[in-house]
């Protein structure tokens, strides 16, 4: 559905993209992850016909982003980093405006606007100017504006940056529904949990190249499996505790810093149970004991360090 090969883009002295490949199958979600300046936005701008790549080619929904740009614009939706809606106009008027620009008739544009306002929980605010909307409402209106022609492919550039947790969850829910209905979604984000929650496939960009790609699980596996982390209450117990941990799990100690010791948990939660039992039996007091799963943060930090 989205296909890119060898995309390059240079701005003056700065090479934003140094040849990236992408492939997103229809009906899936691809999360483009990376620190600021990694080239995420540039990639989205090329795929949405806003920017022309210096080299490489890209197709969205079978249409070339340069040669078929005019037709492609009917097949994509874009929600950028800002809520790109007119502050002074009402939510309804905004959607009508964008609908008219997709060449809907006046009546169709009005009908579609009301439909989307209803769906995105904005029906009550429809007649209020957008400047009175909360951040979450603006984002929802922005998303609605990009869905006027029900595009099969949706691009979202940092859709939840700056939103409060409740609004983020709401937006995630809306995105999940869209994907369930068959929309292909490419989103950029700096939030790893967002990628983890939504994406089938994650592409990590660093300095204009693809640093890693795969499903969230595949990426997490690259930084190792589960671990158990123990924090002993008394520093004096650490030596005895480490001996005990060695016998209770695999002999390896991953790290020991002060009172905190981390060991690999080969059997996942079962390892935790064994360690808890052994520590209890030996009467060694602990301050904290937890099973740590690898997070995308670790993947991210390792890949982008």
């Amino acid at each position, binding site marked *: 559905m989205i296909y890119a090969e060898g995309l390059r883009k240079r*701005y003056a002295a700065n090479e934003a993209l140094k040849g990236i490949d992408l492939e997103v199958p229809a009906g899936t979600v691809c999360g483009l992850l990376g620190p600021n300046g990694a080239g995420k936005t540039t990639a989205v701008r090329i795929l*949405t*016909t*806003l*920017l*022309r790549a210096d080299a490489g080619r890209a197709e969205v929904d079978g249409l070339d982003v340069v040669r078929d740009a*005019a*037709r492609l*614009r*009917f097949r*994509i939706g*874009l929600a*950028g*980093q*800002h*809520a*790109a*809606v*007119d*502050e*002074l*106009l009402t939510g309804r*008027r905004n959607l009508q*405006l*964008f609908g*008219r*620009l*997709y*060449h809907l008739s006046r009546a169709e544009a009005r009908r579609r606007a009301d439909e989307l306002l209803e769906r995105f929980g904005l029906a009550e605010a429809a007649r209020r*100017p957008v400047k009175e909307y909360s951040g979450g409402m603006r984002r929802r209106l922005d998303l609605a*504006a*990009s869905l006027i022609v029900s595009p099969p492919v949706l691009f979202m550039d940092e859709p939840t940056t700056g939103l409060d947790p409740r609004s983020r969850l709401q937006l995630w829910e809306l995105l999940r529904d869209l994907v369930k209905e068959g929309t292909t979604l490419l989103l950029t984000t700096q939030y790893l949990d967002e990628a983890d929650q939504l994406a089938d496939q994650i592409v990590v960009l660093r300095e204009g190249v693809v640093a890693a790609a795969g499903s969230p699980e595949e990426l997490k596996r690259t930084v190792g499996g589960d671990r158990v982390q123990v924090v002993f209450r008394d520093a004096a117990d650490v030596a005895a505790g480490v001996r005990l941990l060695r016998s209770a799990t695999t002999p390896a100690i991953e790290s020991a810093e002060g009172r905190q010791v981390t060991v690999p948990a080969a059997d996942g939660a079962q390892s935790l149970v064994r360690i808890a039992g052994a520590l209890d039996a030996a009467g060694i007091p602990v301050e904290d004991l937890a099973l740590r799963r690898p997070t995308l943060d670790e993947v991210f930090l390792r890949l982008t360090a």
Partner: protein
Amino acid sequence: MYETLRWTVADALTIAGRTYARLKAQPGEIAGFLVFPVIMTVLFGYVFGSAIVLPGGGDYRNYLMPGIFMQVMAMTATSAATTVGEDMARGIIDRFRAQPIARSAVLVGRSVADLSMHLLSLAAMVLAGVLIAGWRAHGSLGDTVAAFGLLALFGFAMIWVGTYIGLWIQSGAQADAATFGWLFPMTFLANTFVPTEGLPAWLKPVADWNPMSAVVAAVRGLFGNPTSVSPAWPLQHPVTASLIWSVAILAVFLPLAVHRYRTMSR
């Protein structure tokens, strides 16, 4: 071909409709539009006007009004730069560009709607001139229409200057400053408020060749208002000169702005 043209016109009208809807949403703006002319007329006509004697004789307030008309049209660049810069910053221009809209429709639609609003402001200014300053047009109907035509053309050209600045600066407030900063002083560095004859020798050519001087001299002539004569070519042939200037500004900035809109990369 016909289809493309039809959509270009339809899209431009939709964009123009947005400009009007925005204006309706801020009644304060309309009030400002209408009150500003009155303030300018009183301030210049009566405060400064009380101390100014024209070298060639004639009523200063009748001399002044065409200058203020031109100033209103020149400042169209500031509001165009501000609104386009704001749309850039908010990503609205990006949204338009990602939509299947005729490439020139957004800018053309805006500029035409902008011009029509500024003509409304000009009408308010004319009314203020007539009622407060006793200004009259003494030329034939044809001359009067031609004078307003020249003002409109100049305003339209300046809208494109502002549009181009807004597309580059990508911030409403900064685009405002970047335009107002040179444009407002430039409206004074002309025959707008005082005849250029009295200016120091090094400054006089600048004022004489300022496109705004040609526009003001041309409409003063067409309205039959007092005017001052400078030997500089543009002021000897003000109608021709102001047409050349306006068309030249348009010929440079309209294609530049459209090109920038189409190929923008950031």
